[in-house]
């Protein structure tokens, strides 16, 4: 057994398990991984990439809506949160989704300060997740390049 591969596989396994344990990911991410196969080896990374693009755009727009204290379009912000919550749920981005729940509550009571805090938090969370998943995908690539297979991880 190639110990370099085994080491990388172990590293991968530990890392992905930690992402679930720390609440970054939920089982919808597992669902996505299960949809990936030899013919579509980049499915997950491309879906999450689209998701992160979505995050950036929605956050930018909501930020604009929240900018002027006297003139906040809460309907627009609420709509953005709804979309963000939907897509984060679809990819298994658990922390992002959870912030959206609080975000929506602030929106419902038209709490601008609360919204701004949530906006900042959701911005942070998606960026952290993006970095972590980039590291995860890099690990995958290293395993493949070393001639190994990606372990299936049952969470």
């Amino acid at each position, binding site marked *: 057994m190639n110990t370099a591969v085994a080491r990388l596989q172990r590293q991968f396994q530990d890392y992905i398990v930690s992402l679930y344990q720390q609440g970054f990911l939920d089982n919808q991410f597992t669902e996505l991984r299960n*949809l990936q196969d030899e013919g*579509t080896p980049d499915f997950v990374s491309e879906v999450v990439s689209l998701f992160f693009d979505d995050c950036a755009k929605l956050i930018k727009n909501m930020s604009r809506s929240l900018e002027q204290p006297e003139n906040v379009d809460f309907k627009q912000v609420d709509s953005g949160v709804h979309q963000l919550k939907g897509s984060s749920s679809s990819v298994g981005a658990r922390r992002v989704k959870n912030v959206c729940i609080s975000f929506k509550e602030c929106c419902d009571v038209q709490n601008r300060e609360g919204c701004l805090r949530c906006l900042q938090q959701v911005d942070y969370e998606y960026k952290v997740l993006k970095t972590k998943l980039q590291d995860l995908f890099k690990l995958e690539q290293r395993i493949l390049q070393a001639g190994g*297979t990606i372990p*299936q991880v049952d969470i």
Partner: protein
Amino acid sequence: NRNGWRRSRRSKAKTELSSLSLVSLFSLLFCLQRAMPRDGAVSCIQRSEMIGIGIGELESPPLDSDQVHVLAVDDSLVDRIVIERLLRITSCKVTAVDSGWRALEFLGLQEDKASVEFDRLKVDLIITDYCMPGMTGYELLKKIKESTSFREVPVVIMSSENVLTRIDRCLEEGAEDFLLKPVKLADVKRLRNYLTRDVKVSDGNKRSIPEDVSRFSSPALITSPTPPSSSSITSMESLDSSSLVEFVSSSPPSPVVDDDSLTSSPESLMSPVDSPIDGCRLDVDH
């Protein structure tokens, strides 16, 4: 259970090659009319939207009459990609559109558009998101059920919110099922049951639908969220060779938040927005 994936470049190329040759085979052997309106409804498909196809074609091969064809409607690109993948894995051919208006256009139900050139557009299932800007999934459902051509087609509604009144409304209007998002493979596999049961098969068309459908103990009309499916699936359906057909609106895709018009459809064709009672919040004016 899988032991793991081997994803060498070689095997990927092989898959693409065999898919391509299958596609050209379809094109040669089957002189069926293509299931695509000729009015330029297919706009430029971005590379990002061609995930997981493995084929570079922008147009789908002619419909194989044995293959199940699903029309998926969702304004969220991420959700569209995911539902497409879920459906393709269960051997469905998928047409994905980003709005109710676009769905009606595809079906030839828009009054001001010329009807499509072929006699019958074969759609076996329509699956639509509930909350969409412009036309909700509920409104789309109504229009489909009002039409003579497509009222028999099962319509499934997807929603991220588990609202009983919403579910009831949709079912009363004739929806076959209501799926809570995020949609999982087990949900989609279950949908195949409608297709084996309800689809009218004419001219002796054989539907080669795999029997690999998940067993489900409770009906789809549940009040609590679907239980999480197991984290691994026991067998992966082999990918069908059909390429993805994605119709996007000719205006830039419009998540509601953009300053541009939020709808992907002309105002004049819009039915009244969803009742405020249901709290579908995507109808925001700028």
